[in-house]
Protein backbone atom coordinates (compact mmCIF):
# COMPACT_ATOMS: atom_id res chain seq x y z
CA UNK A 1 0.00 0.00 0.00
CA UNK A 2 1.27 3.50 -0.77
CA UNK A 3 1.89 6.13 1.86
CA UNK A 4 -1.23 8.03 0.86
CA UNK A 5 -3.33 4.89 0.95
CA UNK A 6 -1.85 4.19 4.36
CA UNK A 7 -2.67 7.74 5.44
CA UNK A 8 -6.32 7.45 4.47
CA UNK A 9 -6.42 3.91 5.74
CA UNK A 10 -5.07 5.06 9.05
CA UNK A 11 -8.11 7.26 9.45
CA UNK A 12 -10.18 4.12 9.86
CA UNK A 13 -7.95 1.10 10.42
CA UNK A 14 -5.90 2.96 13.04
CA UNK A 15 -8.92 4.43 14.64
CA UNK A 16 -8.95 3.61 18.34
CA UNK A 17 -12.20 2.54 19.96
CA UNK A 18 -14.11 5.75 20.68
CA UNK A 19 -14.08 4.96 24.38
CA UNK A 20 -10.28 5.39 24.46
CA UNK A 21 -9.86 9.07 23.51
CA UNK A 22 -13.29 10.05 24.82
CA UNK A 23 -12.66 8.80 28.36
CA UNK A 24 -9.81 11.32 28.50
CA UNK A 25 -11.98 14.07 27.00
CA UNK A 26 -14.81 13.40 29.47
CA UNK A 27 -12.35 13.40 32.37
CA UNK A 28 -10.89 16.69 31.10
CA UNK A 29 -14.39 18.21 30.90
CA UNK A 30 -15.13 17.15 34.50
CA UNK A 31 -11.77 18.44 35.76
CA UNK A 32 -12.51 21.68 33.92
CA UNK A 33 -15.70 22.18 35.94
CA UNK A 34 -13.84 21.31 39.15
CA UNK A 35 -11.05 23.74 38.25
CA UNK A 36 -13.36 26.76 38.31
CA UNK A 37 -15.17 25.48 41.41
CA UNK A 38 -11.89 25.14 43.32
CA UNK A 39 -10.74 28.50 42.00
CA UNK A 40 -13.89 29.98 43.51
CA UNK A 41 -12.79 28.55 46.86
CA UNK A 42 -9.24 29.82 46.28
CA UNK A 43 -10.30 33.29 45.09
CA UNK A 44 -8.74 35.05 48.07
CA UNK A 45 -5.33 33.40 47.68
CA UNK A 46 -5.05 32.95 43.93
CA UNK A 47 -4.11 36.53 42.87
CA UNK A 48 -0.88 36.30 44.90
CA UNK A 49 -0.30 32.55 44.61
CA UNK A 50 3.35 31.53 45.04
CA UNK A 51 3.05 27.79 45.54
CA UNK A 52 2.43 25.71 48.62
CA UNK A 53 -0.38 23.25 49.29
CA UNK A 54 -3.93 24.56 49.34
CA UNK A 55 -6.85 25.26 47.01
CA UNK A 56 -4.81 27.53 44.71
CA UNK A 57 -2.23 24.79 44.04
CA UNK A 58 -5.07 22.30 43.57
CA UNK A 59 -6.68 24.64 41.01
CA UNK A 60 -3.40 24.92 39.10
CA UNK A 61 -3.08 21.11 38.93
CA UNK A 62 -6.75 20.68 38.00
CA UNK A 63 -5.77 22.74 34.97
CA UNK A 64 -2.41 21.14 34.17
CA UNK A 65 -2.91 17.51 35.12
CA UNK A 66 -6.69 17.40 34.93
CA UNK A 67 -7.60 19.45 31.87
CA UNK A 68 -4.43 19.84 29.80
CA UNK A 69 -2.81 16.45 30.28
CA UNK A 70 -6.05 14.49 29.89
CA UNK A 71 -6.94 16.37 26.71
CA UNK A 72 -3.42 16.04 25.33
CA UNK A 73 -3.23 12.29 25.94
CA UNK A 74 -6.70 11.65 24.49
CA UNK A 75 -5.87 13.66 21.39
CA UNK A 76 -2.26 12.45 21.01
CA UNK A 77 -3.04 8.72 21.14
CA UNK A 78 -5.51 9.18 18.30
CA UNK A 79 -3.75 11.84 16.23
CA UNK A 80 -0.15 10.63 16.42
CA UNK A 81 -0.75 7.24 14.73
CA UNK A 82 -2.62 9.04 11.93
CA UNK A 83 0.11 11.68 11.57
CA UNK A 84 2.98 9.18 11.60
CA UNK A 85 0.99 6.48 9.70
CA UNK A 86 2.18 4.02 12.32
CA UNK A 87 -0.37 2.30 14.56
CA UNK A 88 0.02 2.25 18.31
CA UNK A 89 1.75 -0.91 19.48
CA UNK A 90 -1.27 -1.77 21.65
CA UNK A 91 -4.39 -0.15 23.04
CA UNK A 92 -4.39 -1.62 26.53
CA UNK A 93 -1.47 0.52 27.81
CA UNK A 94 -3.56 3.62 27.14
CA UNK A 95 -6.50 2.16 29.05
CA UNK A 96 -4.10 1.26 31.87
CA UNK A 97 -2.66 4.79 31.75
CA UNK A 98 -6.11 6.25 32.20
CA UNK A 99 -7.05 4.03 35.14
CA UNK A 100 -3.80 4.92 36.91
CA UNK A 101 -3.80 8.57 35.98
CA UNK A 102 -7.39 9.31 36.91
CA UNK A 103 -7.23 8.17 40.55
CA UNK A 104 -3.66 9.47 40.74
CA UNK A 105 -4.73 12.94 39.66
CA UNK A 106 -7.71 12.90 42.00
CA UNK A 107 -5.50 11.86 44.95
CA UNK A 108 -2.74 14.33 44.11
CA UNK A 109 -5.13 17.25 43.64
CA UNK A 110 -7.17 16.21 46.68
CA UNK A 111 -3.96 16.06 48.71
CA UNK A 112 -3.04 19.54 47.54
CA UNK A 113 -6.51 20.81 48.37
CA UNK A 114 -6.44 19.58 51.98
CA UNK A 115 -2.63 19.82 52.34
CA UNK A 116 -2.19 16.09 52.99
CA UNK A 117 1.40 15.11 52.11
CA UNK A 118 0.75 11.34 52.06
CA UNK A 119 -2.18 11.71 49.68
CA UNK A 120 -0.07 13.97 47.47
CA UNK A 121 2.82 11.47 47.35
CA UNK A 122 0.47 8.56 46.60
CA UNK A 123 -1.27 10.60 43.91
CA UNK A 124 2.03 11.72 42.38
CA UNK A 125 3.31 8.12 42.23
CA UNK A 126 0.06 6.83 40.68
CA UNK A 127 0.03 9.69 38.17
CA UNK A 128 3.63 8.92 37.25
CA UNK A 129 2.78 5.25 36.78
CA UNK A 130 -0.12 6.35 34.61
CA UNK A 131 1.99 8.65 32.47
CA UNK A 132 4.65 5.98 31.96
CA UNK A 133 2.66 3.71 29.57
CA UNK A 134 1.68 6.82 27.59
CA UNK A 135 5.32 7.91 27.36
CA UNK A 136 6.40 4.41 26.26
CA UNK A 137 3.72 4.21 23.56
CA UNK A 138 4.60 7.71 22.39
CA UNK A 139 8.30 6.82 22.20
CA UNK A 140 7.60 3.56 20.38
CA UNK A 141 5.40 5.29 17.81
CA UNK A 142 7.90 8.10 17.25
CA UNK A 143 10.73 5.58 16.90
CA UNK A 144 8.89 3.67 14.16
CA UNK A 145 7.70 6.76 12.27
CA UNK A 146 9.56 8.03 9.23
CA UNK A 147 7.26 10.85 8.13
CA UNK A 148 6.54 14.32 9.50
CA UNK A 149 10.00 14.92 10.99
CA UNK A 150 9.01 18.22 12.63
CA UNK A 151 6.10 16.61 14.47
CA UNK A 152 8.39 13.79 15.55
CA UNK A 153 11.00 16.22 16.84
CA UNK A 154 8.40 18.03 18.92
CA UNK A 155 7.08 14.65 20.10
CA UNK A 156 10.52 13.54 21.32
CA UNK A 157 11.03 16.86 23.08
CA UNK A 158 7.63 16.53 24.75
CA UNK A 159 8.43 13.02 25.90
CA UNK A 160 11.82 13.98 27.30
CA UNK A 161 10.18 16.89 29.12
CA UNK A 162 7.50 14.59 30.50
CA UNK A 163 10.07 12.27 32.07
CA UNK A 164 11.89 15.07 33.90
CA UNK A 165 8.57 16.75 34.71
CA UNK A 166 7.15 13.72 36.53
CA UNK A 167 10.45 13.07 38.33
CA UNK A 168 10.41 16.64 39.63
CA UNK A 169 6.71 16.34 40.44
CA UNK A 170 7.28 13.29 42.63
CA UNK A 171 10.25 15.00 44.30
CA UNK A 172 8.15 18.10 45.02
CA UNK A 173 5.40 15.95 46.54
CA UNK A 174 7.84 14.05 48.74
CA UNK A 175 9.37 17.36 49.76
CA UNK A 176 5.98 18.96 50.41
CA UNK A 177 6.30 18.70 54.19
CA UNK A 178 9.71 20.35 54.14
CA UNK A 179 11.67 17.10 54.14
CA UNK A 180 14.72 18.82 52.70
CA UNK A 181 14.92 16.60 49.63
CA UNK A 182 15.18 19.63 47.35
CA UNK A 183 17.86 22.23 48.04
CA UNK A 184 15.92 24.91 46.16
CA UNK A 185 12.23 24.06 46.31
CA UNK A 186 11.00 27.19 44.53
CA UNK A 187 13.54 26.69 41.74
CA UNK A 188 12.43 23.08 41.34
CA UNK A 189 8.79 24.18 41.29
CA UNK A 190 9.57 26.73 38.56
CA UNK A 191 11.46 24.11 36.54
CA UNK A 192 8.47 21.76 37.00
CA UNK A 193 6.14 24.49 35.68
CA UNK A 194 8.39 25.25 32.70
CA UNK A 195 8.69 21.55 31.82
CA UNK A 196 4.95 21.02 32.14
CA UNK A 197 3.74 24.14 30.39
CA UNK A 198 6.39 24.67 27.75
CA UNK A 199 8.16 21.29 27.60
CA UNK A 200 5.49 18.61 27.65
CA UNK A 201 2.27 20.45 26.81
CA UNK A 202 3.84 23.27 24.82
CA UNK A 203 5.88 20.95 22.59
CA UNK A 204 2.83 18.76 21.89
CA UNK A 205 0.70 21.81 21.08
CA UNK A 206 3.34 23.36 18.80
CA UNK A 207 4.12 20.05 17.10
CA UNK A 208 0.53 19.04 16.37
CA UNK A 209 -0.17 22.58 15.14
CA UNK A 210 2.05 21.81 12.14
CA UNK A 211 -0.48 19.14 11.09
CA UNK A 212 -3.79 20.38 12.45
CA UNK A 213 -3.76 24.04 11.42
CA UNK A 214 -2.90 23.35 7.74
CA UNK A 215 -5.47 20.53 7.76
CA UNK A 216 -8.25 22.81 9.04
CA UNK A 217 -7.24 25.70 6.76
CA UNK A 218 -6.62 23.43 3.75
CA UNK A 219 -3.14 24.77 3.17
CA UNK A 220 0.27 23.27 2.48
CA UNK A 221 2.44 21.97 5.31
CA UNK A 222 4.64 24.70 6.86
CA UNK A 223 8.04 25.33 5.34
CA UNK A 224 10.29 22.58 6.68
CA UNK A 225 13.45 24.66 7.21
CA UNK A 226 11.63 27.44 9.01
CA UNK A 227 9.76 24.89 11.10
CA UNK A 228 13.10 23.31 12.06
CA UNK A 229 14.35 26.72 13.20
CA UNK A 230 11.18 27.15 15.25
CA UNK A 231 11.65 23.75 16.87
CA UNK A 232 15.31 24.41 17.68
CA UNK A 233 14.41 27.73 19.30
CA UNK A 234 11.52 26.22 21.27
CA UNK A 235 13.62 23.32 22.55
CA UNK A 236 16.53 25.63 23.43
CA UNK A 237 14.16 27.93 25.27
CA UNK A 238 12.87 25.08 27.45
CA UNK A 239 16.41 23.87 28.20
CA UNK A 240 17.55 27.39 29.11
CA UNK A 241 14.46 27.98 31.23
CA UNK A 242 14.82 24.73 33.16
CA UNK A 243 18.55 25.38 33.66
CA UNK A 244 17.83 28.92 34.81
CA UNK A 245 15.17 27.76 37.26
CA UNK A 246 17.26 24.86 38.56
CA UNK A 247 20.45 26.86 38.95
CA UNK A 248 18.74 30.03 40.10
CA UNK A 249 20.28 32.10 37.29
CA UNK A 250 18.06 34.99 36.28
CA UNK A 251 20.15 35.65 33.16
CA UNK A 252 19.39 32.15 31.88
CA UNK A 253 15.68 32.71 32.46
CA UNK A 254 15.84 35.95 30.50
CA UNK A 255 17.79 34.19 27.73
CA UNK A 256 15.08 31.51 27.70
CA UNK A 257 12.47 34.22 27.17
CA UNK A 258 14.54 35.77 24.36
CA UNK A 259 14.98 32.47 22.54
CA UNK A 260 11.35 31.65 23.33
CA UNK A 261 10.31 34.89 21.64
CA UNK A 262 12.11 33.73 18.49
CA UNK A 263 10.31 30.36 18.68
CA UNK A 264 6.97 32.10 19.13
CA UNK A 265 7.61 34.52 16.26
CA UNK A 266 8.58 31.68 13.92
CA UNK A 267 5.60 29.56 14.97
CA UNK A 268 3.08 32.37 14.60
CA UNK A 269 4.52 33.32 11.22
CA UNK A 270 4.17 29.72 10.00
CA UNK A 271 0.60 29.58 11.27
CA UNK A 272 -0.22 32.96 9.70
CA UNK A 273 1.10 31.73 6.34
CA UNK A 274 -0.98 28.55 6.68
CA UNK A 275 -4.13 30.57 7.29
CA UNK A 276 -3.37 33.16 4.62
CA UNK A 277 -2.65 30.57 1.92
CA UNK A 278 -5.33 28.12 3.01
CA UNK A 279 -8.42 27.54 0.89
CA UNK A 280 -10.69 27.61 3.92
CA UNK A 281 -11.20 31.12 5.24
CA UNK A 282 -14.32 30.60 7.35
CA UNK A 283 -12.75 28.69 10.21
CA UNK A 284 -15.51 29.25 12.72
CA UNK A 285 -15.71 29.55 16.47
CA UNK A 286 -12.83 27.20 17.24
CA UNK A 287 -10.41 29.58 15.56
CA UNK A 288 -11.62 32.49 17.69
CA UNK A 289 -10.16 30.49 20.59
CA UNK A 290 -7.08 29.43 18.63
CA UNK A 291 -6.33 33.06 17.71
CA UNK A 292 -6.84 34.17 21.32
CA UNK A 293 -4.43 31.42 22.37
CA UNK A 294 -1.84 32.66 19.87
CA UNK A 295 -2.18 36.18 21.27
CA UNK A 296 -1.47 34.79 24.75
CA UNK A 297 1.46 32.80 23.38
CA UNK A 298 2.93 35.99 21.93
CA UNK A 299 2.60 37.70 25.32
CA UNK A 300 4.27 34.86 27.24
CA UNK A 301 7.99 35.59 26.59
CA UNK A 302 7.46 39.33 27.07
CA UNK A 303 5.75 38.74 30.37
CA UNK A 304 8.47 36.24 31.30
CA UNK A 305 11.14 38.92 30.90
CA UNK A 306 9.06 41.41 32.90
CA UNK A 307 8.69 38.88 35.73
CA UNK A 308 12.37 37.91 35.71
CA UNK A 309 13.37 41.58 35.81
CA UNK A 310 10.87 42.35 38.57
CA UNK A 311 8.94 44.77 36.38
CA UNK A 312 5.62 42.90 36.55
CA UNK A 313 4.75 43.70 40.15
CA UNK A 314 3.74 41.37 42.96
CA UNK A 315 1.24 39.49 40.82
CA UNK A 316 3.66 39.05 37.91
CA UNK A 317 4.54 35.37 38.44
CA UNK A 318 0.88 34.39 38.82
CA UNK A 319 -0.06 36.43 35.77
CA UNK A 320 2.70 34.70 33.80
CA UNK A 321 1.29 31.30 34.78
CA UNK A 322 -2.23 32.39 33.86
CA UNK A 323 -1.22 33.69 30.43
CA UNK A 324 0.91 30.64 29.60
CA UNK A 325 -1.24 27.84 31.02
CA UNK A 326 -4.70 29.37 30.76
CA UNK A 327 -4.44 31.90 27.97
CA UNK A 328 -2.24 29.89 25.64
CA UNK A 329 -2.53 26.18 26.38
CA UNK A 330 -6.05 25.82 27.78
CA UNK A 331 -7.56 28.15 25.18
CA UNK A 332 -5.71 26.43 22.36
CA UNK A 333 -6.68 22.93 23.49
CA UNK A 334 -10.36 23.84 23.83
CA UNK A 335 -10.28 25.39 20.35
CA UNK A 336 -8.83 22.18 18.92
CA UNK A 337 -10.86 19.78 21.07
CA UNK A 338 -14.19 21.28 20.01
CA UNK A 339 -13.14 20.62 16.45
CA UNK A 340 -11.66 17.13 16.70
CA UNK A 341 -14.16 15.61 19.17
CA UNK A 342 -17.12 15.63 16.73
CA UNK A 343 -14.79 14.63 13.89
CA UNK A 344 -13.56 11.58 15.80
CA UNK A 345 -17.10 10.73 16.87
CA UNK A 346 -18.27 10.93 13.24
CA UNK A 347 -15.99 8.03 12.39
CA UNK A 348 -17.69 5.77 14.91
CA UNK A 349 -21.37 6.39 14.26
CA UNK A 350 -23.76 6.56 11.32
CA UNK A 351 -26.81 8.67 10.58
CA UNK A 352 -30.26 7.42 11.41
CA UNK A 353 -31.03 7.95 7.70
CA UNK A 354 -27.84 6.12 6.66
CA UNK A 355 -24.36 7.18 5.61
CA UNK A 356 -21.67 9.08 7.45
CA UNK A 357 -22.98 11.74 9.85
CA UNK A 358 -22.45 15.48 9.55
CA UNK A 359 -20.36 17.18 12.22
CA UNK A 360 -23.23 19.55 13.00
CA UNK A 361 -25.36 16.56 14.01
CA UNK A 362 -23.27 16.19 17.16
CA UNK A 363 -24.98 19.07 18.89
CA UNK A 364 -25.77 22.74 18.62
CA UNK A 365 -23.05 25.38 18.59
CA UNK A 366 -24.79 27.32 21.36
CA UNK A 367 -23.00 25.62 24.31
CA UNK A 368 -19.68 26.16 22.55
CA UNK A 369 -20.49 29.84 22.00
CA UNK A 370 -21.36 30.18 25.68
CA UNK A 371 -18.15 28.41 26.62
CA UNK A 372 -15.98 30.58 24.35
CA UNK A 373 -17.47 33.81 25.69
CA UNK A 374 -17.26 32.72 29.32
CA UNK A 375 -13.78 31.27 28.91
CA UNK A 376 -12.28 34.41 27.41
CA UNK A 377 -14.20 36.65 29.82
CA UNK A 378 -13.08 34.61 32.83
CA UNK A 379 -9.43 34.73 31.79
CA UNK A 380 -9.53 38.50 31.29
CA UNK A 381 -11.23 39.00 34.66
CA UNK A 382 -8.78 36.67 36.35
CA UNK A 383 -5.87 38.64 34.90
CA UNK A 384 -7.47 41.82 36.22
CA UNK A 385 -7.93 40.15 39.62
CA UNK A 386 -4.23 39.32 39.72
CA UNK A 387 -3.12 42.80 38.69
CA UNK A 388 -5.47 44.46 41.21
CA UNK A 389 -5.05 41.73 43.86
CA UNK A 390 -8.82 41.48 44.04
CA UNK A 391 -10.48 38.41 45.55
CA UNK A 392 -14.01 39.47 44.48
CA UNK A 393 -12.88 39.81 40.87
CA UNK A 394 -11.20 36.39 41.06
CA UNK A 395 -14.44 34.91 42.44
CA UNK A 396 -16.47 36.53 39.67
CA UNK A 397 -14.01 35.17 37.10
CA UNK A 398 -14.38 31.70 38.62
CA UNK A 399 -18.18 31.87 38.41
CA UNK A 400 -18.07 32.92 34.76
CA UNK A 401 -15.49 30.25 34.01
CA UNK A 402 -17.70 27.69 35.76
CA UNK A 403 -20.65 28.61 33.53
CA UNK A 404 -18.44 28.14 30.48
CA UNK A 405 -17.08 24.84 31.77
CA UNK A 406 -20.61 23.50 32.31
CA UNK A 407 -21.55 24.53 28.76
CA UNK A 408 -18.48 22.78 27.37
CA UNK A 409 -19.22 19.66 29.41
CA UNK A 410 -22.78 19.69 28.01
CA UNK A 411 -21.39 19.76 24.49
CA UNK A 412 -19.06 16.79 25.19
CA UNK A 413 -21.97 14.95 26.82
CA UNK A 414 -24.08 15.38 23.67
CA UNK A 415 -21.30 13.83 21.59
CA UNK A 416 -20.92 10.95 24.03
CA UNK A 417 -24.67 10.32 23.87
CA UNK A 418 -24.45 10.02 20.07
CA UNK A 419 -21.51 7.65 20.46
CA UNK A 420 -23.42 5.54 22.94
CA UNK A 421 -26.42 5.39 20.63
CA UNK A 422 -24.18 4.55 17.65
CA UNK A 423 -25.86 7.09 15.42
CA UNK A 424 -26.90 10.70 15.05
CA UNK A 425 -30.45 11.93 14.51
CA UNK A 426 -29.77 13.12 10.95
Amino acid at each position, binding site marked *: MTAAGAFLGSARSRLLPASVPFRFFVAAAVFHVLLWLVLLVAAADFPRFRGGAGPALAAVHLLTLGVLTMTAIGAAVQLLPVATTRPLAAVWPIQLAFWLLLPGAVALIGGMLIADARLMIGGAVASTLGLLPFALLLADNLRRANSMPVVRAYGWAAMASLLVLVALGVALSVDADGGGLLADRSGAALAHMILGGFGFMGMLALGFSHVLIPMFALSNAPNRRIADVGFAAAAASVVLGVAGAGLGHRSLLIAACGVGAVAVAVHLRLMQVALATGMRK*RLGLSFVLVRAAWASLALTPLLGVAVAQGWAGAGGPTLFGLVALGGWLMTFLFGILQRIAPFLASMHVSRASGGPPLLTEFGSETPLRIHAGCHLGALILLAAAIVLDSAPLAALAALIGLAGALAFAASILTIVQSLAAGRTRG
Partner: protein
Amino acid sequence: MFANRISRTLHDEHCATIALMERLEGAITRRQPISTTDPASAQLLHDLASAIEADTLRHFDFEETELFTLFETVGDQLIGDHLTEEHGFMRPLGDRLARLARDAAANGFDAAGWKEFSRAGAEMVQRMVVHVQKEEMALLPLLDQALDAATEARLYQAYIGTTQRDDRPV
Protein backbone atom coordinates in the same frame (compact mmCIF):
# COMPACT_ATOMS: atom_id res chain seq x y z
CA MET B 1 3.15 23.01 -4.65
CA PHE B 2 2.52 20.01 -6.84
CA ALA B 3 4.86 19.08 -9.66
CA ASN B 4 2.54 17.38 -12.13
CA ARG B 5 -0.28 19.00 -14.05
CA ILE B 6 -2.98 16.58 -12.91
CA SER B 7 -2.36 17.36 -9.24
CA ARG B 8 -2.14 21.08 -9.97
CA THR B 9 -5.37 21.06 -11.98
CA LEU B 10 -7.27 19.10 -9.34
CA HIS B 11 -5.84 21.39 -6.65
CA ASP B 12 -6.99 24.48 -8.55
CA GLU B 13 -10.45 22.97 -8.84
CA HIS B 14 -10.46 22.26 -5.11
CA CYS B 15 -9.61 25.93 -4.48
CA ALA B 16 -12.49 27.05 -6.69
CA THR B 17 -14.85 24.55 -5.06
CA ILE B 18 -13.97 25.61 -1.52
CA ALA B 19 -14.35 29.29 -2.47
CA LEU B 20 -17.82 28.47 -3.82
CA MET B 21 -18.69 26.44 -0.71
CA GLU B 22 -17.68 29.41 1.45
CA ARG B 23 -19.96 31.71 -0.56
CA LEU B 24 -22.77 29.18 -0.15
CA GLU B 25 -22.03 28.88 3.58
CA GLY B 26 -22.12 32.66 3.93
CA ALA B 27 -25.54 32.77 2.26
CA ILE B 28 -27.25 29.94 4.12
CA THR B 29 -26.22 31.13 7.56
CA ARG B 30 -28.78 33.95 7.09
CA ARG B 31 -32.19 33.27 8.56
CA GLN B 32 -34.06 35.05 5.77
CA PRO B 33 -34.05 33.67 2.23
CA ILE B 34 -31.59 35.37 -0.07
CA SER B 35 -33.19 37.62 -2.68
CA THR B 36 -32.74 36.32 -6.18
CA THR B 37 -33.01 39.87 -7.48
CA ASP B 38 -29.77 40.66 -5.68
CA PRO B 39 -27.01 40.25 -8.31
CA ALA B 40 -24.57 38.55 -5.90
CA SER B 41 -27.20 36.02 -4.79
CA ALA B 42 -28.31 35.37 -8.35
CA GLN B 43 -24.68 34.84 -9.33
CA LEU B 44 -24.20 32.40 -6.45
CA LEU B 45 -27.20 30.31 -7.55
CA HIS B 46 -25.96 30.30 -11.13
CA ASP B 47 -22.38 29.42 -10.17
CA LEU B 48 -23.56 26.70 -7.81
CA ALA B 49 -25.75 24.95 -10.35
CA SER B 50 -23.13 25.25 -13.10
CA ALA B 51 -20.26 24.09 -10.95
CA ILE B 52 -22.10 21.06 -9.59
CA GLU B 53 -23.54 19.98 -12.93
CA ALA B 54 -20.31 20.41 -14.85
CA ASP B 55 -17.15 20.66 -12.79
CA THR B 56 -17.91 18.63 -9.70
CA LEU B 57 -19.40 15.64 -11.48
CA ARG B 58 -16.66 15.72 -14.15
CA HIS B 59 -14.03 15.86 -11.40
CA PHE B 60 -15.60 12.87 -9.63
CA ASP B 61 -15.97 10.89 -12.86
CA PHE B 62 -12.35 11.50 -13.87
CA GLU B 63 -11.04 10.40 -10.48
CA GLU B 64 -13.15 7.25 -10.48
CA THR B 65 -12.60 6.17 -14.07
CA GLU B 66 -8.95 7.18 -14.52
CA LEU B 67 -7.17 7.68 -11.22
CA PHE B 68 -8.69 5.17 -8.82
CA THR B 69 -8.59 2.42 -11.44
CA LEU B 70 -4.92 3.22 -11.95
CA PHE B 71 -4.23 2.86 -8.23
CA GLU B 72 -6.18 -0.37 -8.17
CA THR B 73 -3.89 -1.87 -10.81
CA VAL B 74 -0.89 -1.25 -8.51
CA GLY B 75 -2.67 -2.77 -5.53
CA ASP B 76 -3.89 0.38 -3.82
CA GLN B 77 -7.63 0.00 -3.72
CA LEU B 78 -8.26 1.57 -0.33
CA ILE B 79 -7.93 5.22 -1.28
CA GLY B 80 -10.19 4.87 -4.33
CA ASP B 81 -12.85 2.92 -2.45
CA HIS B 82 -12.98 5.47 0.34
CA LEU B 83 -13.21 8.52 -1.92
CA THR B 84 -15.68 6.80 -4.27
CA GLU B 85 -17.94 6.11 -1.31
CA GLU B 86 -17.88 9.82 -0.47
CA HIS B 87 -18.63 10.71 -4.10
CA GLY B 88 -21.63 8.39 -3.83
CA PHE B 89 -23.07 10.46 -1.00
CA MET B 90 -22.35 13.79 -2.69
CA ARG B 91 -23.70 13.01 -6.20
CA PRO B 92 -27.43 12.87 -5.29
CA LEU B 93 -26.95 15.73 -2.84
CA GLY B 94 -25.31 17.81 -5.57
CA ASP B 95 -28.09 16.98 -8.02
CA ARG B 96 -30.68 18.12 -5.49
CA LEU B 97 -28.79 21.31 -4.65
CA ALA B 98 -28.28 22.20 -8.33
CA ARG B 99 -32.00 21.64 -9.02
CA LEU B 100 -32.98 23.79 -6.04
CA ALA B 101 -30.57 26.53 -7.15
CA ARG B 102 -31.97 26.53 -10.70
CA ASP B 103 -35.59 26.57 -9.42
CA ALA B 104 -34.79 29.42 -7.05
CA ALA B 105 -32.97 31.38 -9.76
CA ALA B 106 -36.14 31.14 -11.87
CA ASN B 107 -38.84 31.51 -9.22
CA GLY B 108 -37.20 32.83 -6.05
CA PHE B 109 -37.34 31.20 -2.62
CA ASP B 110 -40.38 30.63 -0.44
CA ALA B 111 -39.86 29.71 3.22
CA ALA B 112 -40.02 25.96 2.62
CA GLY B 113 -37.76 26.16 -0.42
CA TRP B 114 -35.21 28.22 1.48
CA LYS B 115 -35.24 25.74 4.33
CA GLU B 116 -34.66 22.84 1.96
CA PHE B 117 -31.92 24.72 0.10
CA SER B 118 -30.21 25.70 3.36
CA ARG B 119 -30.22 22.15 4.65
CA ALA B 120 -28.92 20.67 1.42
CA GLY B 121 -26.34 23.46 1.19
CA ALA B 122 -25.11 22.95 4.75
CA GLU B 123 -24.72 19.23 4.15
CA MET B 124 -22.90 19.83 0.86
CA VAL B 125 -20.49 22.30 2.46
CA GLN B 126 -19.61 19.91 5.27
CA ARG B 127 -19.20 16.86 3.08
CA MET B 128 -17.23 18.75 0.42
CA VAL B 129 -14.80 20.37 2.87
CA VAL B 130 -13.95 17.05 4.51
CA HIS B 131 -13.65 15.37 1.11
CA VAL B 132 -11.32 18.04 -0.27
CA GLN B 133 -9.28 17.80 2.94
CA LYS B 134 -8.72 14.09 2.29
CA GLU B 135 -7.88 14.56 -1.38
CA GLU B 136 -5.44 17.39 -0.65
CA MET B 137 -3.70 15.45 2.10
CA ALA B 138 -3.64 12.00 0.51
CA LEU B 139 -4.67 11.79 -3.13
CA LEU B 140 -2.79 14.71 -4.68
CA PRO B 141 0.56 14.01 -2.98
CA LEU B 142 0.21 10.39 -4.10
CA LEU B 143 -0.43 11.46 -7.71
CA ASP B 144 2.51 13.80 -7.56
CA GLN B 145 4.82 10.95 -6.58
CA ALA B 146 3.33 8.07 -8.51
CA LEU B 147 2.75 9.23 -12.09
CA ASP B 148 5.46 8.82 -14.71
CA ALA B 149 5.71 11.46 -17.44
CA ALA B 150 3.86 9.44 -20.10
CA THR B 151 0.95 8.56 -17.82
CA GLU B 152 0.75 12.11 -16.57
CA ALA B 153 0.60 13.45 -20.15
CA ARG B 154 -2.06 10.91 -21.16
CA LEU B 155 -4.24 11.60 -18.13
CA TYR B 156 -3.82 15.34 -18.43
CA GLN B 157 -4.93 15.29 -22.05
CA ALA B 158 -7.85 13.06 -21.14
CA TYR B 159 -8.95 15.45 -18.41
CA ILE B 160 -8.43 18.62 -20.39
CA GLY B 161 -10.40 16.98 -23.20
CA THR B 162 -13.41 16.55 -20.92
CA THR B 163 -13.07 20.17 -19.83
CA GLN B 164 -13.03 21.41 -23.42
CA ARG B 165 -15.95 19.17 -24.40
CA ASP B 166 -17.96 20.58 -21.52
CA ASP B 167 -16.85 24.06 -22.59
CA ARG B 168 -17.46 25.47 -19.15
CA PRO B 169 -15.16 27.49 -16.94
CA VAL B 170 -13.33 25.56 -14.23
